[in-house]
């Protein structure tokens, strides 16, 4: 009873959002690192993709786990936003922010854009449904040609724009999320606070730059099929 109360409180709720969020951040970082293998050529990326697919237990555990974590994160965040809206039924006629960053004020918006983007991304590059012209061929080694699919996608300006919007939402969301999560988990120390504060923007820049490097390298023909 006590424990249920703890998780349902506004603070317990936020602890779970922070933990699930940090878990998703961890995934996003590794996803970016894995994808950077596109710079090593078709063999590297396709072998990597094949390696993941050769471990169905691992792959599906990770997929279902991520889905569960994401659902928790989103459901609790919606609950939190609704609770917070109720906390101030009548707003101010004039409002001046002193400290709150743009990122911190748009978490719900960037989160929603991110959700739409992730669904699109899964349909596009994972399931291959969004773009019928990107066919699922095999490469010379008999692996699925993930490299070819990615290169095909980002030669198209439309997909580049969609992914840029997604990356913008991701970067802005993460820049507030990571540092905020550390504070929510009570991780604070006078000697490290500047580091913790910088952690959000640093992780956001790392992930976004890594992902943008792939998109632009393909679009400008540095990486080609």
């Amino acid at each position: 009873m006590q424990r249920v109360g703890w998780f349902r409180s506004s603070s317990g709720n936020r602890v779970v959002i922070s933990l699930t969020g940090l878990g998703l951040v961890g995934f996003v970082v590794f996803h970016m690192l894995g994808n950077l293998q596109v710079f090593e050529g078709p063999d590297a990326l396709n072998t990597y993709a094949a390696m993941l697919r050769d471990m169905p237990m691992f792959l599906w555990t990770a997929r279902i786990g991520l889905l569960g974590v994401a659902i928790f994160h989103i459901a609790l965040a919606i609950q939190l936003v609704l609770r917070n809206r109720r906390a101030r039924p009548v707003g101010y006629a004039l409002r001046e922010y002193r400290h709150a960053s743009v990122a911190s004020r748009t978490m719900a918006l960037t989160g929603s854009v991110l959700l739409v983007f992730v669904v699109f991304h899964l349909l596009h590059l994972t399931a291959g449904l969004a773009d019928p012209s990107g066919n699922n061929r095999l490469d010379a080694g008999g692996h699925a040609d993930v490299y070819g699919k990615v290169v095909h996608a980002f030669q198209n300006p439309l997909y580049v724009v969609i992914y840029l919007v997604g990356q913008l939402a991701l970067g802005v969301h993460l820049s507030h999320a990571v540092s905020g999560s550390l504070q929510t988990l009570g991780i604070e120390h006078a000697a490290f606070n500047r580091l913790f504060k910088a952690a959000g923007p640093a992780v956001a820049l790392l992930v976004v730059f890594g992902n943008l490097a792939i998109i632009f390298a393909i679009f400008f023909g540095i990486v080609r099929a």
Partner: protein
Amino acid sequence: MKFTLKVWRQRGPDDKGRFAVYEARDVSPDMSFLEMLDGVNQSLIPTDEEPVAFEHDCREGICGSCSLVINGVPHGPDRGITTCQLYMRQFSDGATITIEPWRARAFPIIKDLVVDRRALDRVMQAGGYISINTGGAVDGNVLLISKEQAENAMDAASCIGCGACIAACKNASAMLFVAAKVSHLAALPQGNPERARRVMAMMEAMDREGFGSCGNQYECEAVCPKNISVRFIATLQREYLRAGIVESGLRTEPDSADQESA
């Protein structure tokens, strides 16, 4: 100096409320904001208009009564002060100043700029105290507390409970207020035995009163007249996590204080 004031007027809790415009004339730059309002009210008395209701008591920045959102910032444009410590020299002559009450579901408006802040009292009643009888004052240096610990507790204890943190928060969250109280009491040996029960009870009361949750924007710290740091919110979260673990492992019935002292 001369100002145009856009003031929130509301006859009572059920009134819809509206902005009224008044002129403040012959204002000295050395007047406090509340003295300027006193002058405006003086000029309203001969007219049909009722004077503007606003809260004030000590007028020296320690009681936490004054509570105005001035041009969109609780306690106005200066930092680390209450409204009564704000001077008119902070504004340019002829400026238009918007004055609003604290806005939060937990702070219903009583009249004009006066809000009911008893929600904070109820949060305090839930656990913001020490119920163990500590007897008379002990001899000096019997209870050893490090300088750092004492300073830390004092930094948190300087909260005057004005509610500016809640007024400034996008979510009308009372986290900085609760953080200050919990951190202050948990940092000292007298408050230590009840820390788990205290933080659980105060957080529960905070949610019950309809305050929002922390969004880590730190607007609260930026408007706090006592400059209370948001690091206490991290302390509060740590206390809350700790209490969640401690309480779940122990019986829910608390020990009675009498048994312990017997």
